[in-house]
């Protein structure tokens, strides 16, 4: 039996497998995360964070795939342009740090206000149990 002629260049089979695994993982992730964006009771900063998170997922996943493909092809015929990756990762990391600090600030405010609100609600609920039935001086 004649063996099929071997293709020149690297074997990209494992790369395809890992691409499929990435794809499945991202799909599962977004299936659970995307509905958050449609909810009206989710604060805006969380939606922005989720949108950024989705973008970063796609970006990181794509970058890994491109890097793997680049590494695989570099064995045969060309050099990797590491400088492009450095610039790309530095810029992304910088933006990510900035985004995290902005979101963290918004999140701190959100959490503090929710905590205060919970305290206030606890107080008003407790007070309602012992509200006197005297007539109020001014009614709306």
């Amino acid at each position, binding site marked *: 039996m004649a063996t099929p002629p071997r293709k020149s260049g690297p074997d990209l089979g494992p790369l395809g497998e890992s691409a499929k695994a990435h794809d499945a993982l991202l799909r599962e992730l977004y299936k659970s995360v995307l509905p958050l964006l449609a909810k009206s009771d989710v604060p805006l900063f969380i939606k922005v964070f989720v949108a950024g998170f989705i973008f970063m997922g796609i970006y990181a996943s794509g970058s890994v795939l491109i890097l793997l493909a680049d590494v695989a092809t570099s064995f045969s015929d060309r050099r990797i342009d590491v400088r492009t990756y450095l610039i790309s990762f530095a810029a992304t990391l910088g933006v990510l740090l900035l985004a995290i600090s902005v979101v963290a600030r918004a999140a701190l405010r959100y959490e503090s206000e929710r905590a205060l609100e919970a*305290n206030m609600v606890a*107080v008003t609920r407790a007070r309602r149990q012992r509200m006197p039935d005297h007539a109020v001086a001014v009614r709306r």
Partner: protein
Amino acid sequence: MADEIRILSTVSGKGGVGKTIISSNLARMIAYDRKVLLIDFDFPNQGLTGLFADQVRAACYNARELIFGSDDIDIERVLTIRPNLMFIPAFDPADQDRFDLRIERFSRADLLARINKRLRLLLDNFGFDIVMLDCHGGLDSISFSSFILSDRTIIISEPDKITFNGTLELIDYYEKSWTELFEENNEADSDTLRAARSLYSPHGRQGIRHEKVLFLLNRVSGRFSYDGLTRLYKAQVEGNSAFASHIIGRYVFIPADSILAQSVSEYPLYIELAPESIFCQKLELIHFYAFDARPRVPGRWFTYFIFERKRHRALERQLTSVEEQRTRAVFSFVTLVQFGLLMATVWVGFEASMINSHETTKNQNLSVTHPSLVASWAVFIGLGLLGSSWLNILIAKYYRDISRFELRLFKLGRRRTAAVTLARLVRSVGARGYLLVSSVLFVFIGFMILVAAIAQLLGLHPPW
């Protein structure tokens, strides 16, 4: 809020929320333009009496005498603590019976009528424009009378569970007391209450003026947002009480101030020490809400009008203290520098490896002064210098506040050791000078380095 304001009161549901400091400083601010009488109605704690202890003399006219004594007000015995600012402490310090106040001997209606009569006497016969009442933090009849009789009441609270509960209790107490006072066949039939009503009941049967309350939330921080806090308090205070909704007009938030906390033990009136501070600007805001006019605040450095004065909207929304801003800036800068260093190290390492492989193919040695390497590092150094300059300016502001504080304390005679004051001033002024000069140098050098480095990286010559 354009109608005439003659009586202001500060009240709170619990003690320790900053009522005394706010009322004394606000009274001082109003006294720049008007004749003010400040009265300490906080009999249990005597906050103002303690604050002005070095000016309170034996046999001075006091609040106990004002309420429980005769109608003859001996104005000669009223203390003058500043031009246009007179003060009635809670007690005569020599009074041996001061713990035996016996408020319970008087009904609410009696107290209301008595206080009303005496305040009217003070306003009409002795030429005071404003009477400011500092009340007890908690529920008491004198606080209730002050609330009813004042044209504007400042309810002071803090953003926590305990104070919130106390504040709601206070508002409920006022509502209940007012309602009971007008119930049929109750105290409403007494002559004294009728007299009190006829003397001061400008709004008819309902009595309590709409939106007379400024709700002041003290010691807030950047953990909250202006919109969030306003929404929360509107919903939780006004949403649960029609009475609260009727009386509350405005919300004001005052951030914590570490120098203010420090100054209380050194000098009673912070706005004289730091008229440029956010605290003083917030009091201006309260003054504006109460009187529809900005006060005249003397003693401000010219730099205030260039760098420190906040616009009305920004001032309303200011929740972070200056100290909090500085701390945050330092943390951000340290994070940025670390990130920059990490990036610089990776980048320069890569550049070095590339140059190394390229040069060695030509059998040449890599030099650490290779233009590409130097330019890469220089970009980060330039950026670091610009960031340092920004940070230095922020820290210099701290030394500016401290040096102003020390200098004014010295001028007001609160620093006995001139040498120590001088040393402190030299330290803070020197530190500030160094920080400002280094900032200018950092900006200049950082900018030059940055331009040269970018030109080098792009293969261009710098413009010089």
